[in-house]
């Protein structure tokens, strides 16, 4: 019986395979313009040396090595996915496309399909070649019920239409709906899935929980100590090691992740030299913890690296379904009484920069003309008075004619933000506004925001590489729960622009519309911008070496060992490691180094 059911499953699968991937049924269109890229600058350093072990920490041991299915969305997932190559990658500095598993690509005229010429040398980590059918199998795999990943099931059914195999090294991937040129590849550049490895998918979740799946990237897991550590080893004969954009990258021989359950203890390990680097972006780490003999003696260096990547849309989201926020005067008044600069300058050490636009860091898509409303109590006062909140009560908080106090509950879910809100609360008192801080568990706070129960929400969303508006500002998503329109914006002008933006295919047109949309969002004032963190800061032992520009526009210094688009730029200088360790024993010193790299810093005046 069991055998029969397995047979059936296999049959069903084969059937679905044929339906999603028509094998050489059609011919390639004649007029394809094949593109490739070897013109963009290389961002790795020719001085890189191979060898050494990079030691990282993990807060908890992963619950699985799968990258789909239950428990797979943990902090270890990037390490697994970072070694799965896509058809093409994006250059992290120029944003042009780069060859990866495909050497050439071409677009269809209807903006739904891309064609790829596959690199014939591509190999899985078990030595088997990467076949065209492995791409078609990705659809079967991602659509199958066995992986227990409903989001992926839906995405690969509704967004990706099909993979067509023309010959062994030529395929095409299409989306169900046309996408703008500059976005199409991000939907279409899928990763292959090793069909030979997943031959039997029954009981997928349990069977493949701890199986090491073949990959195409530079490293593969070589050792697992359950509950303690996971080690990746560099593939000595990685098929892509001499390709232009992968040369001199992925230099360390081994990358070991050890479980250290507490950040403070992790920091102590780092100071002892048992971890090679540590992220010190938070002011507390950068200014206070990252001081002392190891830093003064030059054993550990510090790096402040500015990036130019899309920033999360952090702000104060005012729910316009609440009667108070229906009045634009109140919204504008609150923006003018928002003394975030005081928080930044006097509590956060001025490390952050004021956010002006809901979509900052999106390159040309960002409308840099928009400036956040400045802190000005007189202006705030005028707007409050206009809205009918002239009088102040005994406690200095404004009251309207109906005797209602101007008290605003602010929902938030991050304990680390309490200090900022506490200072803002005191500042808002000056304007005659009472903020009531509603700190909830982060999941619970987001749930209440999704259900639109909030008055004001202190939070933000991390988006994709291109700005999106429909989910957050279209009236179709207003006044209902489980949508991202947290301000309940219901504005016909915005709706028209969003519809135009979604159907526009030309980049120029989209940029123009994005700018107009950002301006309209600013004018409505239901979203008050907070602060941006356009940088990453790390501390690292001096034997870690970086290229002249230690990172890329999109990411911080490439202390991430794997990411195929921007990781693996650093290397370990073993000689220097020996010298440093003996110097520390003997007490000899080096010059302390704090490096600030502003290559990608964006200056907003």
């Amino acid at each position, binding site marked *: 019986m069991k055998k029969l059911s397995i047979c059936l499953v296999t049959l069903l699968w084969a059937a679905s395979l044929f339906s999603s991937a028509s094998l050489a049924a059609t011919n390639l269109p004649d007029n394809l313009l094949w593109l490739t890229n070897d013109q963009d600058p290389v961002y790795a350093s020719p001085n890189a040396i191979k060898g050494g072990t990079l030691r990282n920490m993990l807060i908890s041991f992963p619950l699985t090595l799968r990258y789909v299915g239950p428990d797979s969305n943990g902090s270890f997932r990037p390490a697994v996915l970072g070694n799965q190559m896509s058809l093409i990658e994006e250059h992290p500095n120029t944003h042009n496309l780069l060859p990866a598993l495909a050497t050439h690509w071409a677009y269809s005229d209807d903006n739904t399909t891309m064609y790829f010429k596959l690199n014939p040398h591509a190999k899985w980590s078990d030595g088997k070649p990467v076949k065209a059918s492995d791409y078609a199998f990705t659809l079967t795999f991602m659509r199958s019920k066995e992986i227990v990943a409903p989001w992926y099931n839906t995405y690969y059914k509704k967004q990706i239409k099909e993979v067509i195999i023309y010959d062994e090294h030529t395929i095409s991937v299409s989306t169900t709906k046309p996408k703008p040129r500059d976005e199409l590849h991000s939907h279409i550049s899928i990763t292959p899935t090793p069909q030979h490895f997943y031959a039997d998918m029954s009981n997928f979740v349990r069977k493949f929980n701890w199986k090491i799946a073949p990959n195409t990237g530079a490293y593969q897991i070589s050792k697992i100590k359950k509950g303690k550590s996971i080690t990746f080893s560099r593939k000595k004969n990685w098929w892509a090691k001499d390709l232009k954009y992968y040369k001199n990258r992925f230099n360390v021989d081994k990358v070991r992740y050890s479980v250290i359950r507490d950040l403070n203890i992790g920091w102590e390990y780092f100071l002892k030299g048992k971890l090679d680097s540590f992220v010190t972006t938070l002011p507390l780490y950068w200014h206070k913890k990252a001081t002392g003999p190891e830093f003064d003696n030059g054993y550990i260096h510090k790096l402040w690296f500015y990036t130019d990547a899309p920033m999360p849309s952090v702000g104060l989201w005012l729910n316009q379904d609440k009667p108070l926020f229906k009045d634009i005067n109140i919204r504008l008044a609150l923006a003018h009484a928002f003394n975030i600069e005081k928080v930044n300058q*006097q*509590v956060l050490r001025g490390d952050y920069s004021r956010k002006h636009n809901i979509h900052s860091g999106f390159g040309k898509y960002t409308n840099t003309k928009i400036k956040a409303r400045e802190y000005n109590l007189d202006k705030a006062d005028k707007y409050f008075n206009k809205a009918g909140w002239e009088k*102040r009560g005994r*406690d*200095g908080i404004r009251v309207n004619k109906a005797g209602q106090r101007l008290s605003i509950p602010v929902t938030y879910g991050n304990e680390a933000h309490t200090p900022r809100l506490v200072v803002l609360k005191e500042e808002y008192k000056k304007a005659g506004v009472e903020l009531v*801080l509603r700190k909830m568990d982060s999941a619970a706070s987001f749930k209440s925001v999704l259900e639109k129960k909030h008055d004001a929400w202190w939070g933000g969303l991390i988006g994709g590489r291109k700005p999106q508006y429909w989910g957050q500002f279209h009236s179709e998503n207003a006044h209902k729960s489980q949508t991202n329109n947290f301000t309940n914006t219901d504005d016909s002008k915005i709706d028209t622009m969003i519809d135009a933006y979604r159907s526009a295919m030309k980049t120029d047109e989209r940029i123009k519309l994005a700018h107009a949309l950002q301006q309209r969002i600013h004018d409505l004032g239901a979203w008050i911008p907070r602060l941006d963190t356009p940088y990453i800061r790390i501390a690292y032992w001096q034997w870690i070496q970086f290229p002249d520009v230690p990172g890329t526009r999109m990411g911080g210094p490439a202390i991430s060992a794997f990411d195929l688009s921007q990781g693996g730029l650093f290397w370990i200088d073993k000689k220097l490691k020996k010298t440093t360790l003996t110097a520390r024993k003997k007490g000899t010193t080096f010059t302390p180094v704090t490096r600030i790299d502003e290559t990608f810093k964006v200056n907003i005046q």
Partner: protein
Amino acid sequence: MHFQLNPLTQKKIQRFKSIRRGYYSFILFTLIVLLSCFAEILVNSRALLVHYEGSWHFPTYGAVIPGKVFGLDYSYETNYRELEKHFNNDSKNFIIMPPIPFNAYENDLKTSAFPPFPPSFKDSHYLGTDTIGRDVAARLIYGFRTAIFFSLILLVVSYLVGVSIGAAMGYFGGLFDLLFQRIIEIWSNIPFLYVIMIVSSIMIPNFLTLIAIILLFGWIQLTWYMRTVTYKEKAREYVMAAKALGASHSRVIFYHILPNTISIIITFIPFSLASGIIALTSLDFLGFGLPAPTPSWGELLSQGSNNLESLWIVSSVIVSMTVILVMVAFIGEAIREAFDPKQHTTYE
């Protein structure tokens, strides 16, 4: 004076007074609690008294006085510390500030340095500031007031429930007793901390809801003791006599049995008081207590333990906690001595 203390009670008080460390702790403790009721006079950003252009102002308990009243250029609440500096060159006007001129909420930030600031007499931050520039002494004192009144209210309500149920169990016995014993056994196996965590994740706890949640699990302890003593007392002749006279159940329990078990209750009070303070502090420490920015010891403790290099935060709260809890323990010890039934019995 028509109110005459029972000679036995007088004897107990006498004995309590003779245990000196307990007695002095009691006086000191009462004094601190009383003083904390008037914390606004001692610790406040509002001035006690302002004499401006011939008129007198007493801002402490009144409405907000906007800066414009004192010739300043803003309409929000006057910053009296700055007003004091402003008045310094002026002989006509003067201002009297409280000994600690900060409230527990305001951020006293500087442009040249970043909080936490160490203790400084010059800035009147006698115990320094916390990580967002709030005065540690002010937060300590207001936090104490919150904690002690929280604990007192919790004590009263949980004793009301615990004593009534315990006494009823002992008095009625039988099925009622059996049923409640099982209920309590099951109830006490519910992990208290998880319940708190779940509740505070779906709603924002306030002073009263926190008391209610802790009460939900706090009444159990006393019931066992009350049940046992009531069982013992129930069998005595005076109870039978009262019943024979036709007294109702509640009259027998509350007028006859309860006064004879009072020594047990009183003995537990100081320890319950201490545990109430500890409960609130630990909940605040874990972030499940009163919402920010309520001044609280637990919040200070968690700030202190995250900023061990700013020793003044953690040391002030630990020293205060130790002093208060030791005092309470001394009082408890003295009460237990004074009420020891081995020396005084109220039945013949």
